[in-house]
């Protein structure tokens, strides 16, 4: 296609937006409402995901080494743990460090434990992290069976429940977003279909003078694109302002916990990009779906 023709299609599509004022308004509104829903949901989901990731990263297996194990036995155990495919890192934490950590964690009450420094009752520990946090339980069970392992701890119940919760909320989120997206495509394709029914005559005349299907499709395709992009502007502005405010309000309250909201920059730029892309996709898809039907003249 010639560049001149692309220019013509672009001009035609823009003209058509203003000619079909009410239909344009209806389509843009449909995209706007959907993208606000998708956007809000997406922001919440991404933040939940971030919390989940932080928690996931904290999940570790603590392998208490049998006191009877010699240095060689410990090295052997370490290499055996490392040989498990799911294992990412194995860090040795001597019992002296374990005691210090314990003392620090307990604060004033912990000072009493300092007495044990001479005769430390704790075990040396291997801190094991897995490549995928969800493999924690499986890996822990494998490690339990190894020689010179006194005890394996990984907060069994909590980890299991947490993973289930995260998995479920992610699935629900993905399903909801896909559902909203498809609803938007349906809405747009219907609105555009009404515009096209009104312009069936135009399409018929175009075909009569020898326009190819792609020549006819292009202006509608571009029109869908503009509708989608126009529809994405308001959600982007609204969600950005809301998130900016929410971030300022909520984040200080979360200080001291391990939970943090995703920072405005770059998160909001990413969200804006995604919303713009979704708007464009919804618009184009909707228009292509509905114009196809009317090309068989």
């Amino acid at each position: 296609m010639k560049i001149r023709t692309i220019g013509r299609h672009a001009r035609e599509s823009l003209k058509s937006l203003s000619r079909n004022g009410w239909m344009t308004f209806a389509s843009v509104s449909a995209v706007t409402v959907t993208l606000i829903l998708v956007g809000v949901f997406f922001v919440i989901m991404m933040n939940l995901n971030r919390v989940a990731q932080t928690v996931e990263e904290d999940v570790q297996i603590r392998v208490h080494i049998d006191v009877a194990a010699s240095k060689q036995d410990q090295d052997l155990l370490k290499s055996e743990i490392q040989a498990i495919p799911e294992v990412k890192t194995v860090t040795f934490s001597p019992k002296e460090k374990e005691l210090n950590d314990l003392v620090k964690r307990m604060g004033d009450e912990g000072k009493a434990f300092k007495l044990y420094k001479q005769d430390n009752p704790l075990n040396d520990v291997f801190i094991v992290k897995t490549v995928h946090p969800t493999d924690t339980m499986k890996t822990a069970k494998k490690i339990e069976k190894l020689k010179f392992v006194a005890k394996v701890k990984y907060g069994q119940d909590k980890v299991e429940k947490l993973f289930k919760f995260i998995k479920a909320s992610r699935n629900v989120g993905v399903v909801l977003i896909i559902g909203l997206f498809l609803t938007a495509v349906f809405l747009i394709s219907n609105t555009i279909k009404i515009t096209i029914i009104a312009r069936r005559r135009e399409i018929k005349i175009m075909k009569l003078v020898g326009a190819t299907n792609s020549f006819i499709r292009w202006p509608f395709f571009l029109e869908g694109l503009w509708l989608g992009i126009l529809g994405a502007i308001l959600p982007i502005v609204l969600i950005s302002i809301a998130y900016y405010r929410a971030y300022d309000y909520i984040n200080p309250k979360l200080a001291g916990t391990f939970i943090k909201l995703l920072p405005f920059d770059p998160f909001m730029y990413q969200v804006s990009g995604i919303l713009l892309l979704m708007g464009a996709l919804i618009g184009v898809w909707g228009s292509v779906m509905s114009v196809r039907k009317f090309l068989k003249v």
Partner: protein
Amino acid sequence: MIEMQDVYKKYPNGVTALNGINVRINQGEFVYIVGPSGAGKSTFIKLIYREEVPTSGTILMNGVNLAKLRPKKVPHYRRNIGVVFQDYKLLPTLTVYENVAFALEVIEAQPKYIKKRVMEVLDLVGLKHKARMLPNELSGGEQQRISIARSIVNSPKVVIADEPTGNLDPETTWEIMKIFEEINNRGTTLVMATHNRDIVNTLKRRVIAIESGKIVRDEQRGEYGYEN
């Protein structure tokens, strides 16, 4: 030029519109298609510009069988044919100039050529001075002249008209017919379905009468009329 051999057309609703048509129309001819309503005139016209395909038989247009023309080739085929309708089929949101230029934009002609050619044909139909007006600001006759201008702007070899004067008063009808004659005199084949007895009997040309999907009469310099 146009040749139909044993053409049958049966619509999905069971109506048989054409029932064994055999006809040959030569380059440069002016042909009237006459017949009562529902005789198959419009189907005959639609087959020529390939809006419909025959149920059986062949339609040769300069040697190309339209019955077997692939859908992808249809737009290119139509660029060689001008079509004029009773209801003009103009785009109400485009100006006179744009309505005519449209047919050239579709084939991606050079802008300079489009401008020159559109003004030429608007001059031919006598509407050069109204190029910037919208169709609904013009009379029926003027709108039909724009439609004719659009049909010939591509310099087609054939112009097909389906009751082009059906909505016009007698005076305007003659203006339109003069333009058609002029187009035909320049060598373009003209096929026109009509109910207008005066035109047929005054401008004596070849008359093909269709009734119940069959050709009942085919005469050079014929008269209007069919058996019933």
